[in-house]
Structure formats: structure tokens, C-alpha cells
């Protein structure tokens, strides 16, 4: 249950974000389900309340603000832009009786081509408005992992398979082990049969995949050193300063660290782990952050350029943002 104190706190936080120069965004609570289902797939049904309207088809109780915001911006917006919002989101819970089904989110999103500056702006703004609760930031960068996969000396099909499962750590690891020759691949001795053809998939598609499996089996494994370098990047955990020393050529990492430092976030103490936020929702693809206060994660965010591409009908706009959970903050904002 959302209390009056939570609503007051959400209103105060929203006012701070608006004062920082953001336009207010207020989407409906009941959203058409098609876009969200297409984007997230079946997983979203486990996490969101899906309902049925006899005339408009499937609808969903707003599971987040980001998707409707990106849609609205891609339709009408001119960049750069800043948006803020506050309101209820709804999440189904299949496992844990005690988790809330309905809670408030307060968010801020920046559409801006200057990536490093916008990322530092969002994190610094959140830390500023959360200052009364002694917030502790942690940062990550899924872009580093994507770049490391893209640089693997192997086939495009293998790189694409790894990138597709970037957000599913166990499946990603199995694929990497297979491509590095550390685990057996799928059987390649299978041949087409003459069973009746039913459904939309065609015999040509079956043969094309059998060919692809044979071609892949003939490829040399990914070099063990490269695979290990990727794995160590995935498990790297330390400070931003340590990462800068370990990755002297990561330009965007260095640019972001400079932008963060300019806003008073010292690389020597800022926690950094590339894979931070990796198994959150499937849309962060670059910088990520979490903010904890009193041992609770009270805010999360990150870059989601790929989401704007998926919703932009061919266009893409660099976008970064995050949300605060006012219901997890105790006490009022200090005056």
C-alpha cells in the first residue's frame, strides 16, 4: 500500500527534478500491451499485470515509464530533451508474497548526444536529491562487455549469439564455453527427414540451420586468452580508478570518468563493475548505476540507446535515465 508520506516524498522529489530543467511526463496507467510484449517477450507476462479489453485487445498496467516515454519522445520529440515523472508502477509477483505489487517510481530521463555528460548529469542529480538519505552509488558499463564481444576473433554468428544473451548470464556462459571449445556443441550428424511439414517454419529453414551448425562446427574455437579476458571483464569489481588503469583504451569509460569527476565523483572511491545491472531488465546497453541507502537499493538507472532504436522505427537517440523508489526512503526531505 502506498502511504501518504510516500506520495508527499514522491512529489518533493519530482519538484526537484523539474527544477533541474526536466519537462513533466504523465502517461496513462493502462497501456496497450503489444509494444511491451514485443520488446520484452514472455518474461514481461510474469512481471506485469496483463488484462484484456474486448475492443482494444491486450492491455497492461504500466510496468515502467521508460517505454511509453521513449515512444512519446520518438514520435514527437526534438533532442536534446529532459523528462521527469512520478507515479504508480505495477508488478506481478509469482514468487514472493511480501513484495509490493504497486509502488511509486520517480524518474528522470535525458535524451542527449553528449553521452558522458548526460550520464554524469543523471547520476549526480540523483545523488543530489537523495543526499538526505546518505546515498551510496555503484556503477557499471555493459557497453564495455558488448565491445569485448564485438572484438572477439570469431564469426559474426557467434558474436551475435553472445550479444543476444548478454542479459542472461548462465546462457551467455554456456555459449562462450561452447564457442571456446570448452563444452560440446550441438550434434551435427542430423539429417532432414520426410515427416509431414506442419506449421510456419519451412524445410528450407531446417536445412539452413543444419548447414549453419556444420559450418560452425568447422570453425576454430575462440582463443582461450580472449575468452578468459571476456570472463575477467565480466567478473571485474573495484573502483573506477582501477578500471581506468586496467582499460587505458576504453574511451567512453575515460570520458565518463572525467564528466563524473567534474561533478565531484572521485574515481578513486566510486565503485565500478562492468556487469553491474546486467540481469536487470533487458534494455540497459551501456552505463548503469545503482544507488543504495540504508542497505536498500533505492534507485537504478542506465543507458538504453538500443531501446530507442527498437521503438524509433529506424531512428535512434542516445538516452540515459533512472528511477527512484520513494517508498523505500524513510523520513521527509530536509528543507
Amino acid at each position, binding site marked *: 500500500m502506498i502511504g501518504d508520506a510516500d506520495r508527499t516524498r514522491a512529489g518533493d522529489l519530482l519538484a526537484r527534478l523539474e527544477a533541474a530543467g526536466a519537462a513533466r511526463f504523465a502517461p496513462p496507467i493502462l497501456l496497450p500491451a503489444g509494444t511491451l*510484449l514485443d520488446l520484452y*517477450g*514472455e*518474461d514481461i*507476462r*510474469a512481471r506485469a499485470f496483463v488484462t484484456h479489453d474486448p475492443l482494444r485487445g491486450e492491455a497492461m498496467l504500466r510496468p515502467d515509464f521508460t517505454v511509453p516515454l521513449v515512444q512519446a519522445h520518438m514520435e514527437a520529440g526534438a533532442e536534446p530533451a529532459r523528462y521527469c515523472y512520478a507515479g504508480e508502477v505495477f508488478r506481478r509477483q*509469482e*514468487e*514472493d*508474497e511480501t513484495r509490493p505489487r504497486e509502488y511509486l517510481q520517480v524518474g528522470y530521463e535525458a535524451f542527449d548526444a553528449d553521452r558522458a555528460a548526460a550520464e554524469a548529469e543523471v547520476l549526480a542529480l540523483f545523488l543530489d536529491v537523495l543526499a538526505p538519505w546518505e546515498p551510496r552509488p555503484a556503477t557499471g558499463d555493459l557497453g564495455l562487455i558488448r565491445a569485448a564481444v564485438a572484438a572477439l576473433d570469431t564469426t559474426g554468428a557467434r558474436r551475435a*549469439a553472445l550479444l*543476444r*544473451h548478454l542479459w*542472461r548470464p*548462465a*546462457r*551467455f556462459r*554456456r555459449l562462450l564455453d561452447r564457442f571456446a571449445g570448452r563444452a560440446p556443441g*550441438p*550434434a551435427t550428424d*542430423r*539429417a*532432414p*527427414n*520426410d*515427416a*509431414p*511439414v*506442419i*506449421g*510456419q*517454419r519451412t*524445410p528450407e*529453414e*531446417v536445412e*539452413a*540451420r*543444419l548447414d549453419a*551448425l556444420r559450418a560452425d562446427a568447422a570453425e576454430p574455437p575462440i582463443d582461450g586468452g580472449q575468452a578468459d579476458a571476456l570472463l575477467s571483464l565480466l567478473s571485474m569489481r573495484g573502483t573506477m580508478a582501477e578500471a581506468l588503469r586496467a582499460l587505458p583504451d576504453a574511451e567512453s569509460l575515460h570520458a565518463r570518468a572525467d564528466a563524473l569527476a567534474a561533478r565531484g565523483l572521485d574515481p578513486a572511491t566510486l565503485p565500478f563493475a562492468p556487469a553491474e545491472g546486467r540481469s536487470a531488465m533487458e534494455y540497459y546497453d551501456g552505463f548503469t548505476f545503482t544507488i543504495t541507502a540504508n542497505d536498500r537499493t533505492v534507485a537504478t538507472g542506465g543507458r538504453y540507446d538500443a531501446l530507442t532504436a527498437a521503438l524509433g522505427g529506424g531512428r535512434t537517440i542516445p538516452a540515459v535515465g533512472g528511477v527512484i523508489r520513494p517508498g523505500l526512503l524513510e523520513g521527509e526531505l530536509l528543507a
Partner: protein
Amino acid sequence: MIRLGVPSKGRLMADTFDWFGARGLTLRRTGSDREYAGEVEGAEVALVLLSAGEVPRDLAAGRLHLGVTGSDLIRERLGPSAPVHAVAAMGFGHADLVLAVPRFWADCDTTDDLDAVAARFRAAHGHRLRIATKYHRLVRDYLRARGVADYALVDSQGATEGTVANGTAEAIADITSTGATLEANHLKMLSDGPIHASQATLWRSDAAPWTDAERAEMARLEAMLAG
């Protein structure tokens, strides 16, 4: 009095009566063949005859103290934190929830294959690979745990094996005991195990209002049923 829910029809009811009978508890229907009424001899238990599909809900709501139904229905309808736990696996009503694909898919024998096929299918056809089922939660949890992406579940409450030939799905997930219906519909099951191996099970509700007398009777019953 302890309320025991038992499937009201067919083989499952007969097997359930036999199972209790072998443990010294006689269950029988009363009135006409069409009347859903029954009684229990040898214990302070009221017999409730109902659809197997309604047993999970009535256990969770505490309207039944005990109930007999398949573990597939309990796992599908109730979450892991539901106030229901198994008293005894009854050893009949065996059926596996399996994933099945067209037999001519020579390249697809495992969930790993299915994931790769789904990626290519979505790219070629512009929509996700559709899996017809009525076991949405069990199938979704299974595929998520195995990292399968680019699929969508479509609801099918019956004749699920026919959905592929009818063009409303590319694959199915359904209960099978012998595989004969899959075979007849030109489907094959994936080889890496069933999603869930179900059997008839006696369940106890923690949500039901257990009085001291009912608890004492239950302790006596448990000793009988274990014997």
C-alpha cells in the same frame, strides 16, 4: 470435520478410492451415479467430489483440508509460497509436461536448439516463435531458467497437439503419458527431460481452519496412510 477433496470423475477418482481403500479408508459415492456426493468410512472425514482443476484453488483458500490432484495443476495454479504441501505421492496418474516440435525439424532436439531456432524464426518471420499451452507458468519458468528467448506462449485449453498443423503455433507444451497423440500429430518431444513429471498427490492445506479435533484425526490418518 476434515474436508477431503477428490476428483469427481473417471480413472483418477477410481484410483484415488483404491489408494485410500488399500490403506484402510473406504471412500464411496452416495446417491445416484450423477450426484456429486460421497462418504468416508473409517475416519472423521467429509468427502467432497469436485473437478481436479478446482482442488488447488480450494486448498489455497482453505475450503478443503486435504485434496487429491496432479502436481502439475498445483505447480501451475499456485505459487511456491502457497500454503499447501504434499502429504503423499500416490503413484498413479503419471504424466509428463513436455515441449514438442514438428518431427520434420531435424535440427531441433533440445531446448538449446529451440532457443537458436526461435532466434532465426523471429528474424525470418517477424514474430516470436509461438508455443501453445495451458501451463503458462510452468513453461515460462522452465524456459527462463534455461535462457530461451524470442518465444511467445499462446493459450490453448484443449486439442493442443493440433495447433501446429492448424497454423496457430510452431511448437507446443502439453501433458503426455505415452506420446501417442504427439506422434499422431507429427510432433516429437525435446530430449532434455520433461518440464514437469506429474503424478496424483495428496495435499494438505495450511490455510484451512484446523481445530484440535481435526489435527488429532489428521495425525491418526497420517499413520494409516503411511502404512
